[in-house]
């Protein structure tokens, strides 16, 4: 039985894990970098150890140091959170070598999940549909043509040396494919000395729908419904929800079973997520397994009533999952907005610095997972996720309305946030109707809508601003005082400079 867990992470997810440990009476060990002295996870853990400099490579990615702290503090397990070392099979193996339980899948399974081609191969054997395309590298343009004709145009010609959109060509017919193949091969030979190209079907308008998985060491496996994560920017999820507006119970049962099969196919244990693309025709294609707890796991918690971190710990302890698939039913609707420190109008560039004031919304159906507190700092060394605002409602509309109200109550002073963007998105007709896709922001010109919303807000509040200014001018010039306890200090950047 796990009695003490080192959390090899920071920010909201470290706090999330601590919260469950507290509820279970499990001790926690926090680790922190130079940047995180004053961070909440240091304060909330049973113990906290300094592990190095601000740069992740010198602290949160320092495998040896983290294992050293785990051993020194007597932790018998490590929870990796998400990001950092969470999907690093070497680290999972290092933990195993030091007889520390790694709360996640085995290193072997994790490695298989991380290797796209091997994973695709395993899925083919398990009869899980993946995005149609070449089963392996294509050796020449004839093979590419052959495959393209089999799966149908348009197709993507992808270099395995690419990544993040680079080295990908959209091709619409045989002639273009032939030409593109020559150019891509030439480029690749010049740059890498070898060519490695894949053909994959181009999917024009897609939804990102994923299934929460759990599988224990005894082979029991369930899915805990889907999450729709189609609202994205630059392939980063912004808003997630469960259930998906396009998944009915029949689809849930069918694709959920497929998702369970993916876990079995790679001998996956603990919690994971099977990600799928869904086309408008209702077809689903498996993309990958995320071998860890997801950022968006709270939406699943709110509609299932489960504590997923507890489930992770139970499975790591070798226990059986304490329920069957048939015991699970979706209760209401949950939506999550990732409150990022970023400037929407600067191409979502990170916005960092000290946060002098914070108001965190609260109330029925509102959950906030965050590391923010007044006086904290949003560091430039780590990711821009400051908080996750999650609302639950009996149905989508109740959840959405609660989210809109909660977004209005959420205030972070000192950094730019994605809050205004979410208010605009949630109010669009398309979002309300569940008309989602990964290109939602571009397809519906959401940034233009945001600009106009901001102007509308300004106009709505102009009289109030003017009253505040008039009050200020009067106070400042004549210093009217009505009651002695009222005092006012005017902040001014000039004064402080």
């Amino acid at each position, binding site marked *: 039985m796990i009695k003490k867990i080192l959390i090899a992470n920071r920010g909201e997810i470290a706090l999330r894990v601590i919260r469950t440990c507290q509820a279970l009476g499990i001790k926690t060990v926090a680790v922190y970098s130079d940047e995180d002295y004053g961070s909440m996870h240091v304060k909330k853990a049973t113990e906290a150890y300094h592990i190095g400099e601000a740069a992740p490579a010198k602290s949160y990615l320092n495998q040896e140091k983290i294992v050293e702290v785990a051993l020194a503090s007597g932790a018998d397990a490590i929870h990796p959170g998400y990001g950092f070392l969470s999907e690093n099979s070497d680290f999972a193996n290092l933990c195993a070598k030091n007889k520390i339980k790694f709360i996640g899948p085995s290193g072997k399974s994790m490695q298989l999940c991380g290797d796209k081609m091997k994973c695709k191969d395993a899925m083919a054997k398990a009869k899980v549909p993946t995005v149609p395309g070449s089963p392996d590298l294509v050796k020449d343009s004839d093979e590419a043509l052959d495959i393209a004709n089999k799966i149908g145009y348009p197709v993507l010609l992808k270099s395995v040396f690419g990544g993040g959109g680079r080295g990908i060509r959209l091709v619409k017919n045989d002639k273009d494919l032939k030409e593109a193949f020559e150019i891509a091969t030439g480029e690749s030979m010049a740059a890498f000395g070898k060519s490695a190209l894949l053909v994959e079907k181009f999917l024009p308008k897609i939804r990102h729908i994923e299934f929460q998985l759990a599988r224990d060491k005894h082979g029991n496996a369930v899915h805990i419904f889907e999450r729709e994560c189609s609202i994205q920017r630059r392939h980063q999820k912004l808003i997630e929800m469960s259930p998906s507006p396009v998944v009915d119970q029949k689809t849930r049962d069918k694709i959920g079973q497929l998702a369970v099969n993916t876990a079995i196919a790679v001998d996956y244990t603990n919690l994971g997520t099977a990600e799928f693309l869904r086309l408008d025709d209702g077809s689903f294609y498996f993309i990958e397994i995320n071998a860890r707890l997801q950022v968006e796991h709270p939406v699943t918690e709110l509609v299932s009533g489960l504590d997923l971190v507890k489930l992770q710990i139970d499975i790591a302890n070798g226990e059986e999952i304490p329920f069957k698939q048939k015991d699970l039913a979706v209760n209401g609707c949950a939506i999550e907005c990732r409150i990022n420190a970023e400037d929407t109008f600067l191409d979502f560039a990170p916005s960092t610095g000290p946060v002098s004031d914070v108001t965190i919304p609260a109330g029925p159906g509102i959950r906030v997972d965050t590391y923010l507190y007044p006086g904290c700092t949003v560091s430039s060394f780590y990711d821009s996720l400051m908080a996750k605002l999650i609302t639950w409602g009996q149905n989508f509309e109740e959840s959405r309305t609660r989210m809109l109200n909660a977004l209005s109550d959420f205030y972070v002073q000192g950094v730019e946030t994605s809050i205004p963007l979410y208010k605009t998105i949630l109010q669009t007709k398309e979002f309300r109707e569940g008309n989602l896709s990964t290109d939602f922001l571009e397809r519906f010109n959401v940034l233009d809508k945001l600009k106009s919303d901001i102007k509308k807000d300004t106009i709505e509040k102009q009289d109030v601003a003017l009253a505040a200014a008039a009050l200020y001018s009067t106070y400042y010039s004549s210093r009217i005082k009505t009651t002695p306890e009222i005092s006012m200090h005017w902040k*001014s950047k000039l004064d402080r400079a």
Partner: protein
Amino acid sequence: MEYKIADIEDIFNAEITQVLGNSEYLVKINDKERHLRILAMSTRGIEFLLDQKYHNIRYLENTTANIKMVVDGVQITLNKHHKLNQIVYKNTGETGRDDTQVNLRSQIPGKVVSIDAQEGAKVKKGDVICVLESMKMQVSVKSHKDGVVRKIKIKKGGSVAKNDVIAEIE
């Protein structure tokens, strides 16, 4: 006092017209009288009821030119000196000055952002001679008469004090 709000074209008017006591005021906003009751004031800002409706204002920045505030979660920048251009012009080029006067003087201190007339050029009364940045605003200094620019006495990027000669115009 008059204000301009960033992103909105109009010019707005707001002033306290009466102090009713008990933290209550009458405020005239764009010629309409409103009732205002202060609930709390702190270093961070102010909370009041305007015509029975609660508002929370956080002051972010206050300079001689602008007030930047967050009104019920909406960030708004009020420009306090939208008429500075006019005021400056009034005191330099527009009126009252003798046409025989050669020196065009700056009525405000500032940094020279641009010089818009060249020595030897013909200018008309009201033409922009240079632009100064003052109190975080850009203010044009305009010619006080028709004439020829004899000499530019300032440099781009340099500073001018109040009453410094900008140019000699004959």
